């Protein structure tokens, strides 16, 4: 019967619109994340210049250094694209390499951030120093936490690939991870422009 046929052939993750549940779910999640970072960025902007004591952004922020780390993060997006393309064409050798390198570049960004945070604390800027410290560390820290989560996700997928449990039939999982990864990158472009570049 038709129904039986449907029950057998039906992929449980594909809905009646023909779209995959998981991908649509990730888009809904990213919409929500826009509001999350929007609220954090809004808080930063509302308190910009309201600190009653120093140090302020212009005395502390090192634009050249952070430009390098921003470049590293943006390049990781390119690597993510290469990883997905490799997995899709069943080139798992390069799939593994690109996935691992994406994670390494992401971890590199987090490393830069740890260095930056430590350096700022030495310069006398902590969470408690002034409003700039509170808003800066919480905003960039939550972005860093998102990158860290992404690195763990990428490494988990790389590890699946190493054990031979990731192939072109799983490319959607890589694609969804990529959606998240590119989103986190775009958020950094906004934060970098608003916090570092605009005086």
């Amino acid at each position, binding site marked *: *019967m038709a*129904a*039986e046929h*449907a*029950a*057998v052939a039906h992929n*449980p993750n594909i*809905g*009646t*619109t023909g*779209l995959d*549940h998981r991908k*649509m*779910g990730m888009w*809904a*999640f990213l*919409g*929500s*994340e826009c*509001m*999350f970072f*929007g*609220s*954090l960025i809004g*808080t930063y902007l*509302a*308190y910009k210049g*309201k*600190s*009653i004591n120093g140090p302020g952004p212009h005395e502390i922020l090192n634009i050249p250094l952070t430009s390098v780390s921003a470049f590293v993060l943006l390049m990781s997006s390119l690597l993510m694209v290469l990883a997905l393309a490799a997995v899709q064409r069943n080139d798992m050798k390069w799939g593994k390499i690109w996935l691992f390198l994406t994670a390494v570049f992401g971890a590199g960004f987090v490393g830069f951030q740890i260095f930056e945070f430590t350096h700022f604390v030495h310069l006398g800027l902590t*969470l*408690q120093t*002034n*409003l700039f*410290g*509170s*808003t800066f560390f*919480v905003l960039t820290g*939550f972005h860093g936490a998102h990158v860290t989560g992404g690195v*763990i996700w990428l490494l*988990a997928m790389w590890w*699946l690939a190493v054990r031979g*449990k990731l192939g072109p039939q*799983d490319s959607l999982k890589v694609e969804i991870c990529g959606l998240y990864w590119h989103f986190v990158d775009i958020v950094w472009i906004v934060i970098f422009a608003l916090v570092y570049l605009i005086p």
Partner: protein
Amino acid sequence: MATHAAFMPGTKVSAGSVIWSWITTVDHKRVGILYGVSAFFFFLVGGVEALIMRLQLAHPDSTLVTAGRFNELFTMHGTTMVFLAIMPMSAAFFNFMIPLMIGARDVAFPRLNALSYWIFFSGALLLHLSFLAGAVPDGGWFGYANLTSHQFSPTHSIDFWMLGLQVLGISSLMAGFNFIVTIINMRAPGMTLMRMPLFVWMSFVVQFLVVLAFPAITVALILLMFDRFFGTLFYAPSGGGDPLLWQHLFWIFGHPEVYILILPAMGIVSEVLPTFSRKPLFGAPVVIYSGIMIGFFGFGVWSHHMFSVGMGPVADSAFSIATMLIAVPTGVKILNWIGTLWGGRIRFSTPLYFSLGFIAMFTLGGLSGVMHASPPVDLQQTDSYFIVAHFHYVLFGGSIFGLFSGVYYWWPKIFGKLLDERLGKLHFWLMMIGFNVTFFPMHFLGLIGMPRRIYTYAPDLGWNFWNLVATIGAFTIALSFLVFLGNVVKTTRSGAPAPADPWDGRTLEWTIPSPPPVYNFAVEPVVHDRDDFWVQKYGDGHGTPPRKPSPPAHVDTSSIHMPPPSYWPILLAGAFLFMMSGALVSIYQVVLGAFLTLFCMIRFMLEYHRPAAGGHH
């Protein structure tokens, strides 16, 4: 069949395996029942808190509870009713009814659905552990800064509140993603968006509100957490911080939250009225559009909660106009509901009573709402009992009446027994009278100057009489819920089994047995109309004849694969609760909890990665 046996307790299965099957269930219907039972339990808890407050206020200079205890009571009453009663009761209907109404066999992510419930349960537990710890939250359900700072709240009370709310928010967000995907992606063939039942439509709007509004309170609570745990300055005026930041973030969430609470009830009423008037919903597309408008405008009116903070004439005017505008789509809906009743062949059953109660009471609440949309009026009324009267008319008179209309309407579908009509009507009249006796006098009290949140008052202020009346009303409401409980017990013991379609219904859930089998639909339905089942039975009244019901399909139901149970949702929620509660105990517990959470999360995600041959799907 085994599926029925497991679904209806009472057959010969060991208690342990029954409990285990509920703990590991991923069936949307069972998750819905879990939500419903929890919500009703917390509704009673919040109700008892309200009764204690009413007893305290029945007489002037009462000493039943102290001022501090009273603060705890109104904080927990508000928090419980909003987050642990009305929201999960709506979630119960989302879970149980949405897949049935769109012709699906489950939600898009069944395990995530179970996870949402267990995270909700964890949040409720964390919030109520504060009673055991002797540090009950006392900062109001809105938790205004800087009442919540270390300086004014040195104990753990606020910590319990903010961590509990954070956990509850995560649960709502996960459910939101799940239902957005379910509604877009799992509709039966032929069910276009405009053919979707109204309850599904209103729920759809609610999921977008949840997904876009909850991040604001998540951030507000994160900033509060940093202020309290790490000494940041977000809400600290001493460091240049502005306590109004909290109010803005809270109400950017808080006002959409109002629509999160009311829209599901509006959806239920929009299902009940056509069924019991035996007429299609009057102007259904307009009801849908106005629901979307309400959701959209809901994000632009938050500052009407803050007229008294002095935002200036421009901001006050803008938010005042937006607030008055939002009354338009709401009023449109009320006219549509009345238009549905007009000329209908009305059957006065209990669900219709509650829906009519909803229309009348919600209209009253809406009218007082439009009054304080005007800043000069609001300045007179703010923080007085007038406001208490207003929001109880929309939340109790609106949401609770609407939700209980749904309880009576869908009870036979959910449990296979019809609730007793006589007791149901008694419940309605007691609740209706008790509700008005309780809350209508609060309008008077507010206008003659009684402020909110005071724990007692002097005898010579002229407030004695109406306060006593309100207390009598509150106990009448309590009595009405005893009648409801009696009805449930009586029906469960000796109620007649409900047929598949007891109300002569219009939508897909009435085409399948009551209670539904685990797989819901043996054959995937094909939809041709908004009131598809009605048109199938009677034609559309414009010349389309009734459709011949397709002959009962001979489907081997054992060949229908449903997702098997999983214990990872409850384990993941447990690990998460362990991590969050660690914030009150020790950093080591947080770190250990974080690793446990990560471990459970990975196991959860890999449970069906590359299933073994012959396994699930």
